[in-house]
């Protein structure tokens, strides 16, 4: 229970940033808001002649999730481990495949999603991303 509360507090405000920490060997998981279509290749900002190789943050390109019940849960829980672009990239998929995907994230990958939130997420995905429901 306590774990659940901590987890909820950590999200969504902090979760995205959690991976940005430096540790002994490298920094990892840093992202910043990005834009499309530019070509501006450059040496990373702190390129001193030491042994530290800083490549800068990777870019985020906000996903365009349709509104509706369950969208907030997607942003809170799915977004913890991966961008919701993972959803919008998919072709329209049958309802049972979306159920299986959410089950896989929870059971196989250990995503800490409460039952009611998981049900809302499945319902949201089935409402917006099946061959019958997905809008172009």
């Amino acid at each position: 229970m306590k774990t659940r509360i901590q987890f909820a507090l950590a999200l969504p405000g902090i979760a995205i940033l959690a991976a940005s920490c430096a540790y002994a060997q490298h920094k990892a998981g840093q992202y910043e808001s990005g834009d499309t279509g530019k070509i501006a290749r450059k040496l990373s900002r702190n390129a001193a002649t030491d042994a530290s190789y800083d490549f800068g943050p990777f870019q985020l390109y906000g996903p365009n999730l349709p509104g509706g019940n369950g969208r907030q849960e997607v942003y809170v829980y799915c977004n913890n481990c991966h961008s919701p672009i993972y959803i919008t990239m998919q072709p329209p998929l049958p309802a049972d495949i979306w159920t299986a995907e959410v089950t896989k994230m929870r059971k196989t990958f250990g995503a800490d999603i409460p039952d009611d939130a998981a049900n809302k997420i499945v319902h949201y995905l089935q409402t917006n991303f099946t061959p019958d429901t997905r809008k172009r």
Partner: protein
Amino acid sequence: MISDPHFSHPLASRRGFIRAGVLAAAGAPALSAWCAALAQGADPKPAGSRDLPDFTGPEPNPFWNSVGPLVEEPQKVPLILLTDRPVQLETPRHYFLTTITPNEAFYVRWHLETLPNLVDLRVWRLRVEGNVEKPLELNLPELFDRYKPASVVAVNQCSGNSRSRFQPRVPGGQWGNGAMGNALWTGVRLREILDAAKIKPGSVQVQFEGLDRGRGPEGNGSNLFLKSLDLTNPVLDEAILAYAMNNRPLPVLNGFPLRLVVPGYFATYWMKSLTFIRVLDKVDDNFWMKAGYRIPATPRGTTTPDEFKTGKVPTIPIDKIPVRSFLISPDGSEKIPTGFPLLLQGVAFSGTHGIKKVEVSTDDGKSWSDARLGEDFGAYSFRTWQVAWKPRQPGRYQVAVRATDGGGNVQPDEGVWNPGGYLWNKIERQEIVAGSAA
């Protein structure tokens, strides 16, 4: 999961996770603002972002590449976005006109979101451990100087390349054909390192770990990406720990500072940002070997959705790249005047004994003629090919290309289906429209 005393991850526990988040907040203002907006239930789309073309289906993706927008990431020219976190980028078609794929255009595929932004070579080490007599800890200068450099030109192709061709479609990265690339990889022979560490009797596999890490619970596929190869696999004698890609350091998104190169094998084994080589005395049962990247143990790794649902289709870890070929130019985006002396050009490759023959058809596969093969850079490289062709009358020509590898495998005209979306190697077709020339 193998415990890892050398590498403690600050996000492994919830408490560490939150602390790390607070510490990091100062460094990422854009994200911070986005997260604050999220917390207030506002539209979480980052400011300045715009609508993206985002999917094909439920029919097969009709385009050569996937349909995402071009985006800019560190050390890269604009590439096609599949996902932003973790980063997955596809190489546009025209970069395959040459044998070598430029580093800055080379596709990108990470599994987990905590991929490296910074590597400190003062503390970076390659560690060789597990069931060995003499564990090793090597820094980059030691890899440069202690071992004789070895090179190979080899195709790196994602297991899921062309997944968007599948019918019915399967979930996963919806790659077009651009999750592949060919480079000159230079580094140290894996065999030399294993010999220096002296593998103990009773060992069965060698496991590879890099900086492809995520925020899932420890011991879980969402926490750490790990792959293993059998010690009896002859490819271990050809594998290279590459510190150079096309005579330059690897882009971080392709595995700086060191990447495992497994010639002829799918890229899942080519561990990026390698930090551990671990000799195992039992078969690796981590998620990425036991459940992920498995193919049906059937000819061509194909099955059907119904057959697979029975749960009786045995599976094996994916291994070698099947034979493939592509028409790169012309790409069908221009109308060709009748009588124009065209050069049809492309690449072919295989994980089995290289490319022996490439044939081209301009009548949808009814008749075939041999293409002229380009310079041979070894069995694991792209082989360029070309054919001169003039469309004789206006019309819509179905150009098809078919390769045969050194093992006698010919590209088939049927697709495959498996739930992972792997091993696509059907003959590719491209419509070329010829118009009147006068």
